[in-house]
């Protein structure tokens, strides 16, 4: 095993440990849930409410996680690589929606038709790719499970002809529930520490 691999493993272990609180899962699950409710009720307030917790991520992390397991700042190089991968996937997602909304005439009718029928499966696949990339980069292995779950739930929903919002909501709920369970376990396992600092050596 090379030294680089050793350090990569340690980095991933540390990253996974910092995100064992389930907060990131709750935020992602909530966003998907908001998207699903928005589809069901055709009310974009829920889409906004779904994305709202993202701006609260840092304050919540500082309020609940940092006092329990401490504060860490990861090197910016890793965050940059992950950011680039996620940005590429986001551009792909936007591309699909723009193609669907603005330019259906730009592509052959068969492709346009396929997009219209299976755009949510494509959406789930790209989200799944994002989860898989994040899992590979960070070592948070449960993200692989989310990737598979998303594609499976969406594909099953389409196959069983379940109304679209239902399986989007189910996928969001699944991730949300895992996040809440992780948060509860985290809060039980790590009591709040009021002390931070060095003891003067005796």
């Amino acid at each position: 095993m090379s030294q680089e691999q050793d350090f990569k493993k340690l980095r991933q272990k540390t990253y996974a440990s910092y995100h064992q609180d389930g907060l990131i899962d709750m935020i992602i699950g909530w966003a998907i849930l908001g998207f699903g409710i928005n589809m069901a009720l055709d009310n974009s307030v829920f889409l906004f409410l779904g994305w709202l917790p993202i701006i609260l991520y840092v304050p919540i992390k500082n309020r609940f996680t940092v006092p329990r397991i401490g504060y860490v700042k990861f090197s910016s190089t890793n965050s940059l690589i992950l950011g680039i991968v996620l940005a590429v996937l986001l551009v792909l997602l936007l591309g699909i929606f723009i193609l669907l909304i603005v330019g259906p005439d730009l592509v052959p009718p068969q492709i346009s038709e396929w997009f219209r029928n299976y755009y949510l499966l494509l959406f789930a696949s790209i989200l799944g790719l994002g989860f898989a990339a994040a899992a590979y980069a960070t070592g948070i292995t449960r993200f692989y499970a989310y990737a598979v779950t998303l594609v499976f739930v969406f594909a099953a929903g389409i196959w069983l002809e379940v109304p679209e919002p239902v399986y989007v909501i189910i996928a969001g709920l699944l991730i949300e529930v895992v996040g809440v369970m992780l948060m509860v376990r985290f809060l039980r396992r790590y009591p709040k520490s009021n002390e931070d600092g060095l003891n003067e050596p005796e």
Partner: protein
Amino acid sequence: MNQSESSNQELQPITNIDPLIHAPTRLKIMAYLSIVESADFTFLMNQTGLTRGNLSVNLRKLEDAGYISIKKVFVDRIPRTLIRLTGEGRLAIQTYRENMQQVLNELLGDKE
């Protein structure tokens, strides 16, 4: 060159190993600090599994050697003891890894 001299020469890289980093507790601390930009005392204590006193003593030793810097700062209005590797510390852990690899290669006969 007799067998004893040859053996001594093979084990020569061992003398290059930095004893300050080689101690398991300090090696743990240095390894964790080398993969992050900075971490606070509580985080290091949780990750390394060291007690408060043990971690304090070893951090002081690493700070005295110039391998780490310790600063009291406010992160979102909360006081934190932030610890990070200095340039010298980063070089020291890199050199330690290279020397250890060399020692292992010499001992295992796997010269690259």
